[in-house]
Structure formats: structure tokens, C-alpha cells
């Protein structure tokens, strides 16, 4: 057996919500029997951006805010891989926010785990786009689930809380299954407290509310999902659970050519291609 990369122990503070996230990803990979070498975990910048060091898979440390485009590139080039992108609220809702709506819109079959703690931990406590303490007269915080609901291509929107392991594990398994089945972009926002700069365990434990416990909740009903998300928010609650799931065409399937592998596994040898190139060249004959 070749000795290669082995997962290291996380660098996070004791009690950090991210431990629960990492455990849920590891558990979900095992639950769906995902081979480690066919998995790639990509993470952004920040405390959450070290999670790839702690999971048995191929790992990549993305540029700040760019984990989604990078993950999209991996998935398009090799659709056989399970691609998991991870990052924080600064990475996903501030510097990389533009990519999030385009990923909802395209709906590639990747999982995106956004660890939301409302603060920049690694740079020691600055406010993030989801901070509760943002000056209320100038800025209000933003909500990724509502954003996803507003974009037609979105196919899987879930929120979990790292203080509630059972729900987090169930949501993560559902997310990986969604992506593995080629159903599109599985977005999981995990409320994941920062014990050092924004310890919200007590507050969030009282606020999280699983929408799916409501009688007859139908996650394929987008309007009902909107309604319950906004109703709960107005009550000061944080809606959690698998809030919305639908069937929208997955982006990578639009590129798939019958009988051909993904770009990473194509035959590019001259023997199989030169006639084709010669035909192209002939169009320029002068």
C-alpha cells in the first residue's frame, strides 16, 4: 500500500462548530460508500478552508471566494468524481457571493457546505455578511436559502445546525445522494458557531426550527418553502432541514456526449483525432 496523504487533525478551537460539519461529511461519505480516491474536497479561505486536510480524499485549497467555480471546473472535467466544496460565510456570501447565484442557476451536481458563523474567525473577529451585529442602519444580513429559492435552477436547499448532529448527518447524506445521483447542486448551510469570536450556541439552540416537522411539508413546493422560511424568520427563528428539493437539469449533463468520457478521460491521441483536425483546417483553405 502506497503511503500518501493521510488526514490531519483539525486546527479549530475546541468546541468549534466545524468539527460537527467535518464529522457529518465523513459520515455521509461512508454512508453512501463513496470511494475516497473518487472524491475531491475543495475548501475556501478561512477556518473552514482547512477542512480538506482532515478528510480522506483528494483535497484542494481554493483561492478566497473561488471554491465554487473551481469545484465546477473539477465536476465538468471529470463528472465521475464526487465533488464537495466547503467554505465559510465570508467566502461564500462576501468575496464569492457572485459565484453562488451562478452556481444555483447552472445547477452542477456538486455539494456545497457553507459553514455560517457570522464572523471572520481566522482574521480575528471582523463582521461577516451574516453577522447579527452589523450596523442596522446601514446593512442588513443576507440569507443564502432565500437567495437559492429565488433562482429557478436551484434544486437542493438545506440548512442544519452543528449543535444538532442527527439532523446535520441526515441532511448531509441527502446532499451527497442528490449530487451522486446527478440531480444537481446540493447547497447545505450549516449554522456552525465560532466559540472564540461569536459564540452563538445558546442563542441558536433556541432559534433553530426544522421546517420539515410541519404536517404535510412538501420540499418540492417552492412557494410553500418561501412562505415557511419567511414566516419563521419573522418569528425570529432559523429555519432548518431539507427546505427545498426539486428536479432541475444538472449542468454537467448538458455537456455529456453519448459514448464519450468526461474531458479528463478523453482520448486525445493523434491517431484518434488528426483526421478531425485536418477537416477543420480544410475550412481555412485559401
Amino acid at each position, binding site marked *: *500500500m*502506497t*503511503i*500518501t*496523504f493521510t488526514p*490531519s487533525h483539525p486546527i479549530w478551537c475546541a468546541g468549534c462548530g466545524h468539527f460537527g460539519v467535518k464529522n457529518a461529511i465523513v459520515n455521509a461519505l461512508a454512508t453512501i460508500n463513496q470511494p*475516497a*480516491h*473518487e472524491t*475531491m474536497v*475543495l475548501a475556501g479561505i478561512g477556518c473552514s478552508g482547512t477542512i*480538506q*486536510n482532515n478528510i*480522506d*480524499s*483528494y*483535497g*484542494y*485549497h*481554493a*483561492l478566497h*471566494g*473561488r471554491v465554487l*467555480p*473551481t*469545484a*465546477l*471546473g*473539477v*465536476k*465538468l*472535467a*471529470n463528472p*465521475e*468524481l464526487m465533488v464537495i466544496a466547503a467554505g465559510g460565510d465570508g467566502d461564500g456570501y462576501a468575496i464569492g457571493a*457572485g*459565484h453562488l447565484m*451562478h452556481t444555483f442557476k447552472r445547477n452542477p451536481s456538486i455539494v456545497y457546505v457553507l459553514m455560517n458563523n457570522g464572523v471572520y474567525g481566522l482574521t480575528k473577529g471582523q463582521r461577516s455578511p451574516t453577522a447579527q451585529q452589523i450596523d442596522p442602519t446601514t446593512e442588513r444580513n443576507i440569507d443564502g436559502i432565500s437567495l437559492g429559492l429565488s433562482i429557478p435552477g436551484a434544486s437542493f436547499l438545506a440548512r442544519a445546525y452543528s449543535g444538532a448532529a442527527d439532523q446535520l448527518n441526515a441532511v448531509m447524506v441527502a446532499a451527497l445522494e442528490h449530487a451522486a445521483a446527478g440531480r444537481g447542486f446540493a447547497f447545505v448551510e450549516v449554522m456552525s458557531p465560532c466559540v472564540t469570536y461569536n459564540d452563538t450556541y445558546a442563542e441558536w439552540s433556541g432559534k433553530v426550527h426544522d421546517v420539515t416537522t410541519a404536517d404535510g411539508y412538501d420540499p418540492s413546493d417552492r412557494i410553500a418553502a418561501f412562505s415557511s422560511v419567511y414566516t419563521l424568520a419573522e418569528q425570529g427563528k432559523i429555519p432548518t432541514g431539507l427546505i427545498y428539493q426539486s428536479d432541475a437539469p444538472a449542468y454537467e449533463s448538458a*455537456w455529456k*456526449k453519448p459514448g*464519450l*468520457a*468526461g*474531458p*479528463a478521460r*478523453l482520448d*486525445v*491521441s*493523434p491517431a484518434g*483525432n*488528426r483526421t*478531425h*483536425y*485536418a477537416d*477543420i*483546417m480544410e475550412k*481555412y*483553405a*485559401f
Partner: protein
Amino acid sequence: MTIPAKIDDLTIMVAGQGGDGSLTVMNVLSELFGRRGYHLYKSRNVASRIKGGIAAAQMRASIVSRGCTGDQIDLVVAFDQEAVTNVGPDLPPDAVVVFDSSDKPLDRSTLADTIRVIEIPFGRYAVRDLRRDLFKNSMSFGVISQLMNVDQDEAEDCLRQTLRRLPERVLLPNIDSFVDGRKFAMDDAIAAGGYPWHLERVTREKHLMINGNDAVAFGFMAAGGRFFAGYPITPATEIMEWLQKHLPAKGGVAMQAEDELAAVNIALGAAMTGVRTMTATSSPGFSLMAEGIGHAGSAEIPLVIANSQRAGPSTGMPTKPEQSDIDMMIHGGNGEYPRVVLAPGNPGDGFIIGAAATNLAQRIQGPVIIALDQAVAQDARSVTPFDLEAVEPDDAARLTEEDLAAMETYRRYELNPSGVSPWAVPGTKGGMNLVTGNERNEWGLVTTVPAKRREMMDKRAAKIEHVRADLPRGVTGGDPAARIGIVGCGMQSGVIAETAERLNAAGTAVRYLQIRTLWPVLEETADFIRGCDHVYVVEQNSEGQLMHLLNGHGAFGNLRSLKKYDGVPFRCADLVQHIINGEAKAVQGDAA
């Protein structure tokens, strides 16, 4: 009636308002010149908007293959006054102006008296006789073909070939319009002043008519390139469009991202899986991509980046050529990382360098930048067919599952003398690894240990030495014994070659070097400069970036800067004059 001498070098401009379709007459002329065995160099001069504004297409037809437009315009076909007013002062005394006088007669105030003007109300005739203003293209071709003394059958065949996709009911009035044009020319102009030109007829081997953007994209694909992500930007968009047209048929992906940041990062993600990947942009987009390109250098991800440079700074002049990103391409981005910067001098070279860059990126596992400029990128010219047999995808240090099984340990960033670590792409059993832009140890785990940092920086730098011997060599020409040198790259390539030819013919011995590898600076470049008493460095920017680059690699002290930054390429006549003047000054200086 006397027949003038056959013409072997003719520059034509067709101008009108952008969007009025007047430029399509160039396509028929290309067909005609192609059949007669001429080489072509075609450029466009358009404002950056969809319709309106002056649009001009220029074409040089020559028996000898040329890499730039002619010094002067011999024939102007103008559909409005503005074009004539603008170019009038620059026309040679024997120029011919064919003017569409539908609206009003030509104001000749900017034209010399010797210039022959043929006024024909194309638009009006076309509307009167054929009910369509658009037929004026065919009518103007009728006029021009008559002026060049091309017989009707041959000219009509060219028109039919160019318009072959039109339905018969549209084609026929075009033919009628063309015949009318020939009649007008014969009755009005030729009867009065004879034929201004008589075309050559020579045979030449089959060529390609292609621009640099298309050629670079083709070279990339031929070397196994199967993934592209980009964002539209003038004058680079044709690369994306070419690949969108051709990659999917072979299972590849060519996608339009939401911005340049996404484009370069999508490309990085794809490249990590092992597919040969490119992105393309133009100057402002390149600065947006700088972080991603540096990441490819640090994290060791093979990526080709084409930069079709335009005039800057900032939004600059999107449709105008410049070579003002040389510093940025070589030194841009934070920190220091190894990269290769290659500059094709024409579309034929673009194919070769597009393919070479694709293989080099795999071999250094890092960024290879193709430095185009608007002129090389968008000007189309006739080039010899590409040598497809010479292109062979090179998989370099790629590991298979079997390779890995035979290894005791696998470290993604293994230190070795070449600096190139064996590479297992995701999906390969037993090759799991961490890829990061943080400084790291051989396993890919973050480190700031000083000794490890030095090792890793040195390892990455070594990769350039590993491929240095295989980097594209420059093109030299002129008098090999000359003491005066000319150096340039990209859009200057055709200009400096022709300038050297003229200077040598006029008794000033010069030689030239067209640099194709800008970075690293090759020893042959330094040798060329050392071998000359002095060297003119010709470039399209205001700060002399190429000259400073070369000086930084030898403190030569014998470089003379010839710069232009007005959006208009150097003309050979100007360079010849600059160099003759420069030499005269040097002689005076020596005497003093």
C-alpha cells in the same frame, strides 16, 4: 488604351458606417486575389460598438507573403465622406478613390489633385434599379474588378463563389448589380482615364486564411486541449467562440463563465483533473485573472492563458493593438512564481505556440501565457498549412494507478532535481493528495519552516530550467553580418522583417530577431544583442517594456527604443526612416 504594369503589392481600404454591411466586398476581393495567387494580410478597424461609427477593412494583396499592411492605401472604396476625409491626407499621389456619391458629391478638399476619384452613386443605383441598398457591395465589386481589368466571367465566378449560400432569388439581383457596376466603371472611368491596375496571375501552394485567435485555439485543441472557460472581451472573444464551436464535438467543454475570476478558477479546477485546459482574455481581464494565474504557479497546476492585448490602461481602447502588458504577463500577480510567456508573430506561429504552450504547461505543471496583441489576434493572413503531424500531446509526469502501486510513498510536491513532481490526478487510486497555494511540505500540508520554504521556492523555479532547452526559439533574418539589429515580437514581426529587407536593399545592413519566448529571456536573445553595435527595440507601448526587460538581462546599453502607443501599428516606411535617421545621428555623434 494602355495597360499598366502588373501590380504585385496593393493595399485596399473599404470604409463605411459600421453595420451597413459595406465590408463584405472584402470577401469577394479575397476570393479574386486568392485565385490569382496573391497572399493577403487583412485587418479591420472598427469602433467598439455594434452599429454606427466608421468601420474600415484593410487588405494588402501581395505576391510575396507579408506580415503587415502596406505603407499607403492604393485604393479606397468609401461609402461615406468621413472615411475619405480621414485618410485623404495619407494617400499617395497615384491613389484611386471609388466613392459612393448617392447622398452628395465627394468633398475633395483633403485629397491631392493627382488622386483619381471615381464617383458612382452605388446606393442610389442599387435602390433605383434593384430596390435594395444592400446590393451596393456587389456593384462596387463590379467597379473594382473592371478597374483591375479582370474579365467578367472570372469576376462573376468570384462573386458567385462568395455568395454561394444565398438563395437564387437574392443572388441574381446581386449579379445584375455587379454587371451594372462593371458598366459604370467602363463608361465613366476607364473610357476617360484607362485602367489604373492590371492584376498578376501566379500559382502558389495552397495556404490557409486565418487569424491569430483562431490559430491559437486550434493549436491548443490539436495538442489535446479539451477544456476552456472564458469571459467575452474584445479582442480575445474569437478564441472562446472557436473552442465553443469545435471542442464539444470531441467531448470537450468550452464554457462562458460569469466573469474572469470564475473563468480562471473554473479552468484551474478542470486542469487539476488532468484535462489540458486554457482560458483566454484581453488585458483588463488578464489583470482580473492575475490571482488565479499566480495560484497555478504556486499550487502547480498546468494552465494555458492567452492574452490578446489591447490598448490600456483600464478600459483603454478595446479595438486597438498594444503590447503594454509585457510587464504584467511576466511579473504580474503577487509573489514570485515560475511561468513561461510566449509571443507568436503571426497566425501560423499562433498554431505552433498554441500547441507548444499546451504541452509546456503539462511539463512545468504551471502557467504558460500566450502573449497575443490585437493585430496578431484579429488580423487574418495567408499562412502555410499547419503541420498537424508535428503536434503530439505530451503527458509528462502523470502517474497511473499501477505506477502508484509500485511506489512506497507518494508525495504530491516531491522534491527532485527537475522540480517537476510526479502527478496523480483525482480519481487515481492510491494517489490522494492535497493541492494548495499556501507554502507547503512535500505532502501538501501547510508549512512556514524557513528551510522548507526555500526548498519549495527553489523546486518551483527549477522547472523553468527543466524546459528551457525546448522553449520556442526566435526567428532571425536580414544580413547576418550586420552590426545594426532590430528586435520585436508579436505584431512587430512582419514589420521588422520587411523593414530589414528594405534597409538591406537600400544599403543599410541590418539583421533582426523576432522574439518568440519573452520569458524566460533566452540566451540567444542576449547573444543577438551582444553581437550588434546597437539594437532598435520596436514595440507598441509608451514605456519601452520590452527594452527594459532586455536591459534587465544584460545591462546592454546598446538598445534604442522605438515605441508607438497611438493604437496604430508601425508602418515599414516609418521604421525605415526612424532607423536611417537614427544612424545618421549616430554618425554625427561619432564625428563629434
